[in-house]
């Protein structure tokens, strides 16, 4: 759809890459995503792959994505070299809502769910507001992708690893849960991205402590623009007009960011 040129495609930790794409991108809101066609000449894999925007290249000359190799598409992506053409489409989706005067904004990320927070964190800090990141990974190697976040001045970073090789041992929801009461005093908004089990827990803890919570969801996507109706998630909300019309929201076009209380977690 829209031609982009690979600026770089760096291995930053085993299995994790950061790819810069020179592209005449329209403005991007943190939390928005793009659809990338991994091999333009091939019909297999057929569908585009969604990736959150990690950062905007200097001078708004394009974007950067952070991705993990999990299957065929991402494997092919990892072989792209600077100068190669890439076919991308976007930015898509709603992105994280900017909350006025958040006190401290809290980001909770699980695994690859950290990707959309780099841009968000930079935005929040630029506005002169406070931000904290709770990040959960399997172990030290996965946690290494958070390195850049530590360089952001003013961002408080807390890490939990499942094997205890870095930060606290346990799940990110454990460290978030422990701090939630204290956070409730100074934070007013929580943004979360990661596996659905984690998101559900973050939404629950946030609600219990009176924190507003926004979750960014992931679903298999075919179109990315709300027309195939494939990426449905039960939102438990009705539209008002026409009885069951809004029972399903589309992650690509109504999301990927939803208020935590709108999601019917049992259905995920």
């Amino acid at each position: 759809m829209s031609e982009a040129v690979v600026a770089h495609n760096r291995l930053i930790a085993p299995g994790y890459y950061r790819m810069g794409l020179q592209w005449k991108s329209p403005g991007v809101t943190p939390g928005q995503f793009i659809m990338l066609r991994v091999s333009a000449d091939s019909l297999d894999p057929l569908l585009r792959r969604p990736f959150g925007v990690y950062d905007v290249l200097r001078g708004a000359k394009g974007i950067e994505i952070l991705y993990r190799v999990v299957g065929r598409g991402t494997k092919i992506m990892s072989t792209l070299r600077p100068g190669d053409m890439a076919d991308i489409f976007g930015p898509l989706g709603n992105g994280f809502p900017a909350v006025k005067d958040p006190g401290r904004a809290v980001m909770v990320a699980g695994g690859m769910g950290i990707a959309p927070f780099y841009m968000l964190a930079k935005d929040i800090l630029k506005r002169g507001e406070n931000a904290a990141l709770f990040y959960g990974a399997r172990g030290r190697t996965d946690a290494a992708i958070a390195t850049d976040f530590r360089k952001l001045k003013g961002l408080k970073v807390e890490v939990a690893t499942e094997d205890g090789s870095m930060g606290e041992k346990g799940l990110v929801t454990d460290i978030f849960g422990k701090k939630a009461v204290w956070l409730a005093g100074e934070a007013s908004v929580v943004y979360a991205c990661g596996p659905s089990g984690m998101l559900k827990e973050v939404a629950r803890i946030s609600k219990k402590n009176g924190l507003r919570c926004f979750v960014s969801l992931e679903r298999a996507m075919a179109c990315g623009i709300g027309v195939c109706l494939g990426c449905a998630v039960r939102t438990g909300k009705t539209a008002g007009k026409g009885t069951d019309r809004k029972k399903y929201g589309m992650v690509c076009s109504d999301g990927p960011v939803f208020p935590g209380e709108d999601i019917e977690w049992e259905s995920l």
Partner: protein
Amino acid sequence: MGIPLKKVDLRVDAGGGLKLKNPVMTASGTFGYGVEFEPYMDLGRLGAIVVKGLSLLPREGNPPPRTTETPCGMLNAIGLQNIGVEAFIREKLPRLKRFKTPVIANIFGETVGEYREVARRLDGEPGVAAIEINISCPNVKKGGLSFGTDLREAARVVTAVRKATRLHVMTKLSPLADIKVMVRAVEDAGTDSISLINTIPGMAIDVERRRPVLSTVTGGLSGPAIRPVAVRCVWEAAKVARVPLIGIGGIVTASDALEFIIAGATAVQIGTANFLDPSASVGVIDGMEDYMKRHGVKKVKNLTGSLG
């Protein structure tokens, strides 16, 4: 094959008063209500726009997961989620009809009566050029494919819709139907044209969890993987059909579309390819024009059924 030409004629007559500026339409369920594609292309260039299947009342569709990728294709089990015919007329049609492209309403019902009511509601609605009857959806428990594989049921639906509207009536067939006899049955019931094929029932299993990937276990296969099956269906239908045929299934390029036309189709519909590139149909139109110029084919209708 002839002398190269500078100008070619892409117009086709799909019968029953449906005249198209070119033979390329977008397929139902892959192009939303049309308006979603406005930012990505000039909707005025399309031969026709077929909108998402409409039912009498809004439908919420099937639980997720609803889609999964397969080799050169995808399975879907959307379950005909749609806003309902009233909301379509009120909210989508006013904008859609501003483009110089005929709008075809794809319709669905769980009973013959429901098909008839949706058709009646659309009849005489300014901006609707034709009705495409979906009797071939594999993803709903009632209606859909149960009508599309049974000759008598299929004929009942088409007869009822025919009586309810003066609009062009197009009937969409399943590859599971006995094609030749089904073509005759829906023709006798009064259809103006026949579109084929809808998706092919298929299934994918998550072997790690030993669970079906889709919530509904089975779904409909679409995309390049089904093209050979679809071309064969059109070719078979063409042997007996008296009404124009519209070929559907796995079209990505102009050459794919031409296979259908050469096999006997008057026009084509582009489905899954819209997900790879929202303006895929425009590429097909341009490529077709280019092919005709190169081969010295003045009118695209001369290619229909030109298989040597």
